[in-house]
């Protein structure tokens, strides 16, 4: 497995550990899709906005070209799954019936606002369900690599790309750290294994709160994992 894959799997696995059933979860394209394989709670139900509640893994021989997820990848269906049209699916999303959305981003700023649909200077060609998920899901978890390919922080003071919503994400999970967004401020709650606080500070443009516990340099408020 390549290093890129390792990183993505690490982030996906960490995101999966945030999910506690019973809940309804929508997984975005990219890293979020990988989250599915780390879920083994039968009370966690996966929703895909193209019209299926009860997304499951699918083995090669059971692939059905007419049963796909939002990334148009073949998926399976759980026992108890249901299909519905796009308006009904987005009614579920906008209407507040999805508990958690896990989304990839291009940028996220220090208030938790994300940009994940358009790049300035390029044609704005697609938005899909991103804006609907941001306004509708009860909790939004961002999964993203901490930096771009050239090493620039994706956690910025302010998004330079068009934002997806004025609503803030609730949590940001990267291969370096986990942040909670509390009152529109990023709060570091966890360092990923082997990562130091200095490394996070160096690679993060966004301001974030390090609320140490017991004056211990490596413990943060909410830092209950290691």
């Amino acid at each position, binding site marked *: 497995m390549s290093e890129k894959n390792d990183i993505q799997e690490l982030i996906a696995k960490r995101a999966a550990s945030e999910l506690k059933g019973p809940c309804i979860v929508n997984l975005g394209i990219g890293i979020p899709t990988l989250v599915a394989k780390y879920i083994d709670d039968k009370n966690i139900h996966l929703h895909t906005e*193209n019209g299926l509640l009860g997304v499951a893994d699918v083995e090669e021989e059971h692939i059905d*070209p007419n*049963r796909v997820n939002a990334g148009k990848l073949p998926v399976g*269906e759980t026992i108890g799954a249901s299909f519905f049209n*796009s*308006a009904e699916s987005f009614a579920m999303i906008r209407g507040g019936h999805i508990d958690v959305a896990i989304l990839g981003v291009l940028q996220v700023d220090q208030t938790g606002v994300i940009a994940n649909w358009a790049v300035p200077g390029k044609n704005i060609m*697609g*938005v899909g369900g991103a804006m609907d998920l941001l306004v509708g899901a009860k909790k939004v978890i961002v999964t993203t690599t901490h930096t771009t390919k050239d090493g620039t922080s994706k956690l910025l003071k302010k998004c330079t790309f068009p*934002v997806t919503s*004025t609503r803030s994400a609730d949590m940001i999970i990267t291969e370096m750290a986990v942040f909670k967004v509390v009152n529109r401020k990023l709060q570091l709650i966890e360092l990923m294994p082997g990562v130091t606080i200095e490394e996070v500070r160096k690679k993060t443009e966004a301001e974030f709160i390090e609320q140490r516990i017991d004056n211990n340099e490596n413990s943060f408020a909410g830092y209950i994992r290691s």
Partner: protein
Amino acid sequence: MDKIHGNAVQALSCVQSGHTLMVGGFGLIGAPLTLIDGLAEIDVTDLTVISNNLGEAGRGLGVLLRQGKIQKAIGSYFTSNREVGDYYQKGEIELQLLPQGTLSESMRAGGAGIGGYYTKTGVGTELAKGKEEREIDGVKYVFEPAIRANIALIKAHKADTLGNLIYYKTARNFNPLMATAADVVIAEVDEIVEQGELSPEEIVTPHLFVDKIIKAKKILTKAGVVSCE
């Protein structure tokens, strides 16, 4: 009245240049591929196409794009056909991007006699620029008008001879909505069954929405799009 037509070109006789067409499908999934082939054969131009995507490069609606028949497209995710950007850059197509939930909701409104509605989606973003904003019970919304079309081309799984339709898995997507929001609705189906074979509780699109039916001659399989004549 017999709604069943022998082939796509015959069923499409009502399509005229300048028409607005809704075309079902999420990419190629649930797209009426036989009817799109028919559109490629007939001499119509300046179409406005309302569809989530414009197919893929050279496939599905991507064929019509290459033919230059699409003057404007309204959708949510054109990225799935990399050629759309090129045509857009050259000024050969006009694009209107809507969030996917807004696209589907506007179709539903168009079919339901609703003039427009307020959605939370998009508030404060570039896609809300120029749109009326309104606060209702302390929450901000943007106004979105209903959308309708002259013709809807949809894909269903089975039709009965009356025109009742059911769909298949995620190939359902936008199809039942488009069936409500156009002056003429043409459905391409995998199978035509006798009246009474579809359960009254299970019918997704009642026959009053459907004007014409053809049998699919191209379907999406694991191996890609194949002819099934």
